[in-house]
């Protein structure tokens, strides 16, 4: 263990054994007790009217004076050197203002790769159009700027590139021979407790199989885009971003300017799912704009997104469980290999769910990364959990079948009392309640325990279930600013993001409840790097990060307000922790009639406005407690016995994610995750040509995502039990929905046809042989 690792381990242990009271969340957020506010009521999106009327402006929709249109040309080899770039015809084409290549691009540093430092946003840390080297098939080799998009796109076709190809590793089997231990968030993924191999060998019941998941692409419908312009040495970027502060800092590093000189806005984002971070296009647009001395709009084509924005990588997972006759797990083994780019660090951590899902006598969990010459793979909705739960929860289903037990009962039998691998107490874990409620509502009792025995005409019908799980995270750096005005209104500013999660609406509700103001008296501004806070829209952590930041700013604001109000105020002598907001007033929390309105308080202090900015406390709570969201997924499928076609006919998700802040938008998050999970189960695959490292289906015609006709009505229910240690008692709900779905579908397919598919997606080529319809 290195000195750094030892220090980290010591810190972690100290946080684990520290008294609860010293932890953030040690005292429950007062909002958890409040029962009559906006929290928990279904509120329609505040930005709804803009979105349905077409007035919401996305990144590529900001007109700028003198703006040029950009297009990119991509390499067609996976590794080697550009030996010749013929741009003469393109440069002379009508309307063309600039052709930028490595010959004339300004000198720039590589973008700091994501997770390499607190505000690093880069998908990789490769040079950006600085030399002749090619690192992946699809790397940008030229940027064309023209007066219109049509002129730019045409001119691009006139560019000639010749390459000297070098040997590349583009086949997974070759890369696997040279894989290395996966390191995630600074820590090795390998975890061993006891002798899992020996326990497995000795166990009377076992499953031991290999599960595979392919590459996936996020495919937000909004294409990645940036509209950029320079004002002297200040850069303005209208981006589609889930990390505005990270992007501003990282672009400043690239161009060698101060962070404050880069202004990134991103008010509306047309979906992200992990993909809308800093890739080469923003930098290239800014560089070209600098050379041309004019603003630039660069919207990637759909193919362009596949070429330069990475997706989820493939996984090959060995999953083994050894159990006693009563179902108790003796051994839990989940190990395997993922493909990873050479210039990023994202070893898809598929073992994360197994760290806390079940009690077991022994564990061996490990991920190896096999480096390949390919576009950098990256985070995609529930990185690790989405594909890890496929193997884990399929294996549990296989074991239940092997033991002749109901799969829900088998899961409950292995329910841990505390975190099975860290020993930390759970902050809030009500998965058994979620299973019971879900089974009841779904009609699980009607499932035929013997697979392949329920047929209606051509259709084989089956039911399956699986556990969903995703951690509670809160990342460092959260901060917010609240301004209270003389008319009793409040405004929050925070560099957070709204990609459709409902953040802006939900945080307006939460802030209104915290201050005791009506919703229409509160506004929340976000999506701007000049606002306070480093708030990644990722890891389902925004809700907690914003919640804790606003709570800190609120406390500072109220402290200041009470101090300034002086001894004539009825609240004199109270501190911020002794008051709560109600109906436009601050009230003594245990004596509500002792109160004063914000309007009166502001008049008393003689200010037009009062502003407070504060940072959230360090996020120690999820080390001190084991904090996770949970769910029980139920699926009914119909597999056609003649064609092999699989249709999902019913789906129910029963969630345990703390308190649900806005049932309307949370339900959409759950359903949206589940639907992406149906895609993962049945159709999604980024096809990678192992001969040359090129994505073969870079379009929405050939990469299939679920469409209207693929999606049944999806029922979602939740326990609504607050997590006493989380801000507002809530967990983020953006990622939990996709987890467990792959296994729930695969388990239902098994129950329908009596044959197991362990290789996603479950397409016809996999069901037909199992049905005996093709050899």
């Amino acid at each position, binding site marked *: 263990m290195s000195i750094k690792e030892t220090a980290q381990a010591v810190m972690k242990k100290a946080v684990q054994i520290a008294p609860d009271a010293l932890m953030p969340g040690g005292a429950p957020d007062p909002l958890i007790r409040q029962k009559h506010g906006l929290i928990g009521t279904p509120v329609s999106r505040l930005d709804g009217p803009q979105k349905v009327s077409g007035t919401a402006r996305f990144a590529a929709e900001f007109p700028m004076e003198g703006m040029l249109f950009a297009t990119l040309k991509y390499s067609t080899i996976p590794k080697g050197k550009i030996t010749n770039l013929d741009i003469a015809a393109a440069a002379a084409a009508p309307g063309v203002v600039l052709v930028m290549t490595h010959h004339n691009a300004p000198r720039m540093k590589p973008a700091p790769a994501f997770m390499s430092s607190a505000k690093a946003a880069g998908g990789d840390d490769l040079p950006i159009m600085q030399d002749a080297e090619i690192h992946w098939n699809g790397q940008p080799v030229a940027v064309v700027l023209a007066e219109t998009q049509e002129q730019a796109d*045409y001119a691009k076709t006139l560019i000639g590139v010749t390459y000297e190809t070098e040997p590349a590793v583009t086949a997974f089997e070759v890369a696997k021979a040279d894989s290395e231990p996966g390191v995630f968030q600074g820590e090795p993924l390998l975890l061993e407790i006891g002798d899992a191999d020996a326990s497995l060998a000795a166990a009377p019941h076992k499953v031991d199989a290999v599960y595979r998941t392919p590459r996936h692409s996020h495919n937000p419908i909004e294409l990645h885009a940036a509209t950029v312009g320079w004002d002297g040495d200040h850069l303005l970027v209208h981006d589609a971003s889930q990390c505005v502060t990270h992007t501003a800092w990282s672009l400043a590093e690239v161009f060698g300017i101060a962070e404050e000189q880069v202004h990134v806005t991103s008010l509306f984002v047309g979906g992200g799912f992990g993909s809308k971070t800093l890739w080469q296009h923003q930098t290239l647009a800014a560089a070209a704009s600098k050379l041309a001395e004019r603003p630039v709009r660069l919207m990637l084509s759909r193919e362009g997104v596949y070429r330069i924005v990475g997706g989820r990588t493939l996984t090959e997972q060995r999953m083994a469980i050894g159990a006693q006759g009563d179902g108790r797990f003796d051994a839990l083994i989940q190990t395997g290999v993922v493909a990873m780019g050479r210039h990023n660090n994202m070893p898809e951590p598929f073992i994360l769910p197994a760290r806390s899902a079940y009690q077991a006598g022994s564990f061996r969990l490990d991920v190896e990364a096999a480096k390949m010459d390919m576009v950098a793979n990256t985070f995609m909705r529930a990185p690790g959990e989405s594909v890890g739960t496929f193997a884990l929860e399929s294996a549990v289903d296989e074991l239940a079948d092997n033991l002749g037990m109901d799969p829900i009962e088998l899961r409950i039998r292995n329910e841990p009392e505390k975190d099975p691998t860290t020993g930390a107490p759970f902050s809030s874990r009500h998965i058994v309640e979620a299973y019971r409620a879900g089974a009841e509502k779904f009609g699980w009792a009607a499932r035929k325990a013997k697979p392949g025995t329920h047929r209606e005409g051509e259709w084989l019908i089956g039911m399956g279930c699986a556990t969903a799980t995703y951690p509670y995270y809160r990342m460092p750096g959260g901060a917010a600013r609240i301004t209270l005005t003389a008319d009793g209104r409040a405004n929050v500013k925070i560099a957070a993001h709204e990609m459709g999660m409902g953040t802006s609406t939900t945080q307006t509700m939460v802030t209104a409840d915290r201050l005791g103001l009506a919703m229409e008296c509160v506004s929340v501004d976000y999506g701007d790097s000049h606002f306070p806070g480093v708030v990644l829209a990722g890891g389902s952590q925004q809700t907690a990060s914003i919640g804790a930041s606003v709570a800190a700013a609120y406390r500072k604001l109220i402290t200041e307000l009470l101090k300034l109000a002086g001894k004539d105020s009825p609240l004199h002598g109270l501190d911020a922790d002794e008051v709560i907001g109600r109906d436009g007033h601050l009230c003594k929390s245990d004596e509500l009639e002792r109160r004063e309105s914000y309007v009166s308080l502001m008049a008393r202090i003689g200010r037009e406005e009062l502003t407070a900015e504060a940072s959230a406390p360090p996020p120690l709570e999820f080390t001190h407690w084991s904090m996770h969201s949970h769910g029980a997924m139920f699926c009914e499928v119909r597999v056609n016995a003649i064609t092999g076609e699989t249709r999902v006919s019913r789906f129910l998700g029963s969630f345990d994610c703390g308190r649900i802040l806005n049932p309307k938008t949370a339900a959409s998050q759950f359903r949206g995750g589940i639907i992406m999970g149906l895609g993962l189960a049945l159709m999604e695959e980024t096809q990678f040509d192992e001969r040359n490292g090129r994505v073969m289906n870079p379009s929405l015609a050939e990469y299939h995502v679920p469409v209207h006709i693929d999606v049944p009505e999806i029922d979602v229910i939740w326990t609504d039990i607050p997590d006493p240690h989380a801000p507002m008692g809530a967990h983020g709900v953006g990622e939990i929905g996709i987890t467990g779905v792959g296994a729930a579908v695969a388990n239902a397919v098994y129950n329908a046809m009596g044959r197991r598919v362990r290789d996603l997606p479950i397409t016809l080529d996999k069901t037909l042989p199992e049905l005996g319809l093709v050899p």
Partner: protein
Amino acid sequence: MSININGSPTNLPSDTRVSLLDLLRDHLNLSGTKKGCNQGACGACTVLVDGERILSCLALAVQYEGRSVTTVEGLSTNGLLHPLQQAFIDHDGFQCGYCTPGQLCSAVGMLREVRRGLPSNVTNDLEGESITLTRDELCERMSGNLCRCGAYNGIVYAITEFAETTK
């Protein structure tokens, strides 16, 4: 050479390569109509031409000389939301909102197709007098409009409610 967009006559571009979508977005700053693939696979660019839904990314602007185009900006009148727009808000028929303009225009055009009795792939009775807008009929007919956020359930509720109130 003129085209009517949301009731206003507009000059057609001299560059015949300009798609109807790029005319709207890049040349007229009518950015309500969205680009999601530029190859007819996602439906985000759906607009109505003389009441029929088309994919504006697969249409050259000059082909539509003299025709009337309605975009999402043209659905609302005098600043009042179209009832289908309101139904999308009420039923949370979107998350990020990027596919929404296409879903809205597509739904308006789709309901006219149903009223005209045009069959779909899931219509059992091809000789029937009228089409019943079952859930399957609706979903089949809307399947050209992708929503990656997965707001499909809300979209279906919204369209169903609107269709019932305007029968």
